[in-house]
């Protein structure tokens, strides 16, 4: 067990270090002088040039530069945003709540919608099953930005039920503003979770132990919650990594569509204005969140399915 945990932790740490090296080193892959790349087309004073030189340690050799940047990053210091003339960390911190709330609301839609629809499709073979699977085949083909615009047109322009733009102020107003964006992000993945849940539960339903349980008189809710749900959970959990990555990048698109000031829209804006310090920081942040959440799921898996620790044998 401890061996399993240590291997996973070490793997995550190595991945993050390598990723940070790439995110930092990439700047020097680009043809041209790093200083002029960093400045881009922006008008800045010679004092600021001195700050950038110092911040990126441009007078130092490459390895020392990386160490300067990485130690700063670990302490939460990613330097100065040229476009906003502001500390990158503060800038990102002010944007985190919106994105976090968006992802949480989306997760609620995906988990509830996907599990319920998947279970219904698994148990109600025939017309209900075909209707659900047919619908998910379509939702799986609609990109997030098209869903966003479809929702905006229907519920903001047409019915005027929800706002099409902005964050809102105050907690409930923010929730209200995030209903459409979180749905737009969720719909695609609801289909994915539905299909996987259905397939996993079908497999369990057709297995021998379920037949035996039925013969013993275990039917209905006990059969579902104690047997089918628990045993199909590991298969459904394999989606978690897909979902986490998907939401981290979909949030960027949705934030642009709905004009939300979250991390994603900040990233896109910074890419456009070549504000490289912000791009590096957000890229690193997203990868870290992705790696850490995957790690947590990996470490929780043995609680759901003890077989994973034994290396998948004995199945």
């Amino acid at each position, binding site marked *: 067990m401890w061996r399993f945990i240590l291997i996973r932790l070490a793997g995550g740490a190595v991945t993050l270090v390598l990723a940070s090296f790439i995110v930092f080193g990439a700047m020097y892959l*680009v043809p041209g002088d790093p200083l002029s790349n960093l400045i881009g087309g922006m008008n800045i004073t010679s004092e600021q040039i001195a700050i950038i030189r110092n911040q990126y340690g441009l007078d130092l050799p490459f390895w020392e530069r990386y160490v300067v940047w990485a130690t700063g990053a670990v302490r939460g210091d990613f330097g100065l945003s040229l476009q906003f003339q502001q500390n990158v960390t503060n800038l990102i911190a002010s944007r985190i709540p919106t994105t976090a709330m968006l992802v949480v609301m989306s997760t609620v839609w995906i988990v509830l919608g996907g599990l319920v629809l998947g279970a219904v499709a698994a148990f109600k073979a025939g017309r209900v099953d075909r209707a659900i699977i047919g619908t998910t085949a379509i939702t799986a083909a609609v990109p997030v*930005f098209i869903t966003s615009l479809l929702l905006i047109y229907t519920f903001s322009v047409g019915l005027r039920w929800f706002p099409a733009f902005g964050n809102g102020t105050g907690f409930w107003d923010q929730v209200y503003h995030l209903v459409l964006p979180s749905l737009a992000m969720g719909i*695609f993945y609801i289909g994915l979770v539905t299909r996987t849940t259905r397939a996993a539960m079908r497999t369990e339903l057709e297995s021998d132990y379920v037949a035996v349980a039925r013969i013993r008189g275990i039917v209905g809710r006990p059969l579902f919650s104690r047997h089918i749900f628990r045993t199909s959970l590991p298969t459904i959990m394999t*989606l978690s990594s897909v979902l986490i990555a998907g939401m981290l990048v979909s949030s960027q*698109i949705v934030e642009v569509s709905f004009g939300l000031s979250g991390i994603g829209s900040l990233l896109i804006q910074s890419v456009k204005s070549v504000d490289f310090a912000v791009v590096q920081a957000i890229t690193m942040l*997203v990868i870290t969140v*992705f790696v850490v959440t995957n790690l947590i799921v990996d470490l929780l898996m043995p609680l759901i399915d003890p077989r994973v620790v034994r290396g998948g044998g004995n199945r």
Partner: protein
Amino acid sequence: MTGQIPAADALLRTDTTVRLPRRDPWLFASIGWLALVVLIAIVGPWIAPYDPNTVDLRAINAPPGTAGHLLGTDQLGRDLLSRLLVGARLTLIGPLIVIVGSTLLGVIIGGVSGWIGGWVDGLLSRIIDFLFAFPGLLLAIFAVALFGPGVVTPAIALAIAFTPIGARLMRNLVMREVRKDYVSSLRVLGFSGVGIFVRHVFPNVSAPMLSQTVLGFSYAVVDLAAISYLGLGVQPPEFDWGLMISEGQQSLLAGAPWPVLWPSIMIVLVVIAFNHMGEYIIDRYQRRF
């Protein structure tokens, strides 16, 4: 979307598809539709009724069916049918780069890894695992930050981001084949390793890989359209369907949805067709046994 996909790998493990008939009418519909789209991508600029960039401020957001504009016009009065026909080419070129690149890399890395095994496999598998830490769209956006917007930069980034999916599938498939009796029989008969791989193993693993490639194309279409939508792909005056959707958002908010609607329908239908083809291939492969 975004590269992190329940790819053919997952389709092989769990039966997520509905059983398809052998002579599936939807398969022919998909192939026919994709053939039409490819044709449009090739001849689009020659059959477009108008220059797609001609601005006509007297006909802004004209609804579909307006005299002379079958599908209507956008917020600058540009003919939408013409833009749809011309935009097809740049919409498909990016995904083509992604798929050719990631399939070649995936087949080579996965093939070598599965065939040779041992420490080579260990090393390559670590690299594949590491690449999985980069969500596809994020890598593409990061590449644009470095090299500037365009068609090729995000496409190359996505090709790299998609590689681990195909490589892992290839590795697992090849590994399963290597253990089979026919491979050791051929070795005993004195055939060379490369010969056995190319003539016998590769054909046996090609169906799932083809399915992966076809599915990958649809994910690439979605991701690159998203890149264009975000304004990080093709730059005006050039355009693809993703950029058309982005530019049409103003019209949509003003109550004229068609500049967004047509390119959206095109993208969705292309993706559905590719997805269906991919699922058909994997379905046939599973029932071969």
